[in-house]
């Protein structure tokens, strides 16, 4: 969602325009409020410079394009850590203070509380782990999560959805496989 696709000339040109536009937009706000005359060059430079470079020599901004993706990856890692910290140390810790509904039974002598796992039929072996490899950011996780919260009577877990949605949004994933539909021998 936030990672730039593998660089090809059209993306480089478009990236240059996007950076120019957003750069100028961001710089124009302080320029408007504080010192218009002084900051005009700072607004004009990205607005003209990046598109000019990108459209005429797309390869000249390929380093910036790569750096941008490096920054996205760093941001993603830090943001995930930050969001999970909030989930745990702010929300879960507070909810935990309300006590537990789990009934812990002490085993009697010579008795085990382990439960036997019901095995799957051999027909399902190839599908057994199919669901585990799914990406967190894939569609449909909200429905599954709500279903789990409802069936397990953990209604409070609904409140985590905005934070989990943010976690999904900051996750980055790039398909490193060669693109399909391309003739190539090697």
């Amino acid at each position, binding site marked *: *969602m*936030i*990672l*730039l*696709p*593998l*660089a*090809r*000339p*059209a*993306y480089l*040109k*478009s*990236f240059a*325009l*996007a*950076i120019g*536009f*957003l750069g100028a937009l961001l710089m124009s706000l302080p320029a408007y409020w504080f010192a218009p005359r002084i900051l005009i060059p700072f607004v004009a430079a990205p607005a003209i410079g990046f598109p000019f470079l990108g459209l005429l020599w797309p390869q000249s901004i390929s380093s910036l394009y790569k750096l*941008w993706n490096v*920054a*996205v990856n760093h*941001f993603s890692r830090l*943001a995930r850590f*930050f*969001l999970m910290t*909030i*989930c745990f140390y*702010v*929300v879960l810790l*507070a*909810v935990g*203070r*309300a*006590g537990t*509904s789990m009934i812990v039974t002490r085993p009697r002598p010579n008795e085990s509380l382990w439960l036997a796992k019901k095995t799957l039929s051999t027909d399902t072996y190839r599908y057994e782990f199919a669901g585990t490899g799914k990406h967190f950011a894939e569609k449909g996780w909200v429905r599954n999560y709500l279903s789990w919260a409802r069936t397990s*009577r953990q*209604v*409070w*877990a*609904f*409140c*985590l959805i*905005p*934070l989990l949605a*943010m976690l999904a*949004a*900051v996750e980055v994933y790039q398909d490193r496989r060669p*693109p*399909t*539909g*391309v*003739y*190539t*021998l*090697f």
Partner: protein
Amino acid sequence: MTAIRVLLASTTALIGLLLTIPVAAIWLLFWAVASLTKFGSRLFEPYMVTSDQLVEFTPTIGWKPKANLDAYYLTMVRDGVFHTITDAQGWPDRTKISDSHVVVFGDSYAFGYGVDSKTTFWRCKTGIIIKAIGAPGYNMVQEVLLMRQLSYQLKGKLLIWFIYFGNDLYDNLSPNNQCYRTPFLRKNLSQEWEITTRHVSPLRWPNKADPRYYDKLAEMCCATFLSERAYSACNFLITEAKTICQEAHAKLVLMTIPDVIQLTSAGHEKLAASASNPKSFDPNRPDDQIKAIAFSLGVPVVALKDYLTASDYKERDPHWNQRGHQRVAELVKKIWHQNRLDGNERVVKDRAAQALSMNPLSGVL
């Protein structure tokens, strides 16, 4: 307890959300740039087709480019998209065979894969008209079958046949190219080569094994069972092509195309490292073998390794770049001129001989 939990969770989640405002702001910036980049790229890149949409099934040959294409396709992601045009039969460019001076048969090199159609060797302004007949992935067997099919249009033409060492020699013996079924050569019970097309159909070939073409090319540079077999198959195919051209009154010239790995010393080392029989490794073996076959058959051969350098090839795929196409176009022009001069000399000699034989005094003199 549930109500307390919900109350605690909603309050703390709200506090948590407030804390995440800086993260959301930065995310918004990254998202805006990514979205604008993806959306804006449509302004700079035309709609492109996949490689499957470039070709279609055709009986016997296996596949050919779709007719009347005017489309863009992607090669390597970083290289972007390239334009291609095909005629009503599916061959590159709209030029007709009948209007051309030179007809080139080949694979993706003849197709002009990896450069825009306007910069291919058949579009370079050399003063001669070149018609290319080829498609990505073709082996020499498919090209011989095409020569047969089009032989009635080849009369008086100079026919240049591209032989690419990267995969052609091995693919002649293989029934498939990735998932596509291809005509190939095999020996029959009397140990003679024959072209096999019975398995060719639109169905996907089940074996997806990687052919490891560089390893195969290294083997073609050695004296091995596979290379002996591949050159024997080449001999058969070149003989077939020569016969077709003789019957069609066309002139056949072979043009061998080295892979870029064969043009540098580093490439030679890389090939030698994966050679199955290092003692017999010789990077010039493919050219030497084809030259020997061509010499025995009296077919001229031009080795592009003597004319091209690594800088005539693209960086990220094995095809020629614009400069490479320009060089090949100039070379094709030279061959055509030379062929025309040779043809004129022959005509003059024939006429002179004819005049002598018709002169009633010639016998006396």
